[in-house]
C-alpha cells in the first residue's frame, strides 16, 4: 500500500512534469529545447511509478500513522516562517523554541521559560550581533 500510495503520487507528479515540459517546448534532436530533459526525466519517472503501483497493488499498508509530535513540530515550523517577518526574529524564535522544547519533553514552566529565553538570547547574540545577520524586527524594535 505504501508503494501504491507513493507510486500514485509520483505518477501524478510525472504527468504534471510532462505537461510543463511540453508547455516550455521540447525542441527536437537537432536543437533540444528547454523542456527536453524534464520531459525525458518525467517520462522515465512515469514508467517507474507504474512499476511501483503494480508492485504495491493489493498489498496492505504497514506504516504507522504520523506521530503527533512530528505534526505539531512541522506546524510550528511552517507557522514560524509565516510570522517571522511580522513578529520579528526574537519574538517568533522565542515561541518556536518554547514549543519545540515542550514537544521534546514536558518540563516545569519556569524551566521551559528559562531555557527558551536562554536559547533565543544566545542565537540572537551569536547570529544577530556577532555574525551580523540582519534579522526581521517587530514593531517593538527587536
Amino acid at each position, binding site marked *: 500500500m505504501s508503494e501504491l500510495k507513493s507510486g500514485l503520487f509520483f505518477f501524478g507528479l510525472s504527468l504534471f512534469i510532462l505537461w510543463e515540459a511540453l508547455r516550455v517546448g521540447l525542441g527536437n534532436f537537432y536543437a533540444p529545447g528547454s523542456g527536453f530533459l524534464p520531459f525525458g526525466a518525467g517520462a522515465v*519517472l512515469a514508467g517507474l511509478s507504474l512499476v511501483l503501483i503494480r508492485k504495491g497493488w493489493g498489498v496492505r499498508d504497514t506504516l504507522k500513522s504520523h506521530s503527533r509530535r512530528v505534526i505539531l513540530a512541522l506546524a510550528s515550523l*511552517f507557522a514560524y516562517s509565516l510570522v517571522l517577518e511580522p513578529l520579528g526574529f526574537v519574538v517568533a524564535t522565542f515561541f518556536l523554541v518554547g514549543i*519545540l522544547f515542550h514537544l*521534546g519533553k514536558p518540563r516545569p514552566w519556569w524551566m521551559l521559560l528559562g531555557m527558551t529565553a536562554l536559547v533565543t538570547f544566545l542565537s540572537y547574540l551569536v547570529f544577530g550581533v556577532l555574525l551580523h545577520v540582519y534579522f526581521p524586527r517587530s514593531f517593538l524594535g527587536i
Partner: protein
Amino acid sequence: METLQSLAYGFSVFLQPTNLLYCFFGVLMGTLVGVLPGLGPAAAISLLLPTIFHAPAVSSMIMLSGICYGAMYGGSTTSILLNIPGEVASVVTCIDGYQMALKGRAGPALGIAAFGSFFAGTFGVIGLMVLAPTLANFALRFGPPEYFSLALMSMTLVTYVGKGPLVRGLMMVCLGLVMSTVGMDPISSRTRFTFGIPALLDGFGIVYVTMGLFGLSEVLSNLSQSLEKVTFTTTDTRVRNLLPNRQDWKDSALPIARGTLIGFFLGLLPGMGAALTTFMSYAIEKRFSKHPEKFGTGAIEGVAGPESANNAASSGTFIPLLSLGIPANPSTSILLGALLILGLQPGPMLISSRPDLFWGLVASMYVGNVMLVVLNLPLIGLWVQVLKIPYSILYVLIVIFCEIGAYSVNSSVTDVLLMNIFGLVGYMMKRYKFEAAPLMLALVLGPMLEKSLRRSLMLSHGSAAIFFTRPISVVFLLIAAFFLFSPLFTREKIGKKAIEMQED
C-alpha cells in the same frame, strides 16, 4: 618534484592563522557529528553551509572538508566504548570494538582505530595529491558527450549502491533532474517550473534544499520515535593504556594496509561511500584471517581494517570531486554545491585555475589528520560526555540552526519556508523509504548533464551516436548499463550482502 613544490605552496596557503582555525573548527565539528548519532556529516555540512558566505573560499572548503573526514574519526569512539555508532561508517567497528571494550581492551581498540585512521587518512591525502592532477589532465580531453556519460554513470552507481530497490533510487534521480531544471534555462533563457514565484527564478538553492532534506528531515524522523531511544547513558568509559601492544600491531598491520587500499580505491567510485567500504573490509579480513571464529568476540583486525577503510575512502572521494567535479556521496555533493556557491567551477580546470584552493586543501588534510589524532585520543572522555546532552535539547538547537542558516543566506523568509517544505519532503521520503542521496546528486549534476546532453546533440546534428562512438564516453555508458541492468539478470545486486549489512 613539481608535486612537492605545489605541496609546499599549499602549506604556505594553509599555514595562515585563519585557515588553521577553520581547519580546527571543521575537524572538531566532524568529530562531534561523528560522535553524535542522528546527525551525519552531510547534515552537519549543510548546517554550516551558510557560514561560507562570510569566509574566504579556501578557508570555507578547508572547514567543510574537515567535517567529512573528521566524522570518520569521531564515529569510532562511541562505537568502541558504548556500542553506539555515531556514523553508518562506524557500525562495523561496534562488532569487535565493543567486545574489546567489554574485555577491558578499549584502549588498544581506540588506539589502533586512531592510528589506522591516521595512516589511511594520510595515504588517502597522498593519493589525492598524486592522482587528482593526473585525472584532471586526463579529463581535459573530455567534451560534452564524455561529461554527459560520466554524469549518467555517477548517478547510476549512486543509485545502485543505495539502500532499497533500484526503482526507487532511479525515481529520485529523475526527480532530482527535474528539480535541477527549475528556473531560467541557461541556453534559451525561458523560465521553467517557476509558476511566477520570483524565488524560483534562480532554481532551488542548494543550502535550503540540503538543510531541509538532510538536517531537518533527520530531526523530524527522530522526533517520530521515542526521544529516549536517541538519548544515551554512558557506562564505564575510563580508558587506560591507549597504546596497542606488539601482538596488536602485528595483527593489525596487514588489515590496516588492506583496509586503506580497499577504502581508497572504492572511495573513488561514485556511490561507494565510506560505509560500504567498511563492510567490505570486514568481510575480507574475516576471510583472510587464520582464526575467523574470533571475529565478533573482540578481534583487533575487525577494528583496524574497517576504521582504516572508512578514512581512506573519505579522502578518496575528494579525487573525483576536485578533478572531475563529480561528487561520490551526499557529503561531497554538498561540497560541490559549496564550490558553486563560492563562484568556482568544479572540473578539470579547478586545480590549475585555483591552485591555492586545491593545494591548500591537500595541506590542510595532512594537518587535519594530525589534529584529529590529538583531538580524539586524549579527549575521549569529553566526547563521551557529549552523548549525555539529552536529544530533547539537542534537536531544538539543530532546528534553530537550520532556520537561521536558511534565512541568513539571502535574508529571505521565503528560503525559510522552502527549507521547511524540503524538511517535510525529506521526512516523507524517509517514511516511504526513498533516499535523498540520488536526488541530491541529480540536483547538483543536473545542470552539467543537461548542458552536455544538449550541446552533444547540437554538435552531432541530432545523432545520439555521438555518445557511442567516442571511446571514453562508451566506457562510462557501458559501466552505467552494467550496473543498471545487472539486477535483471543476477536477480540481486552485486555486493548485496555488504549493502544489506549497511542497511541494517
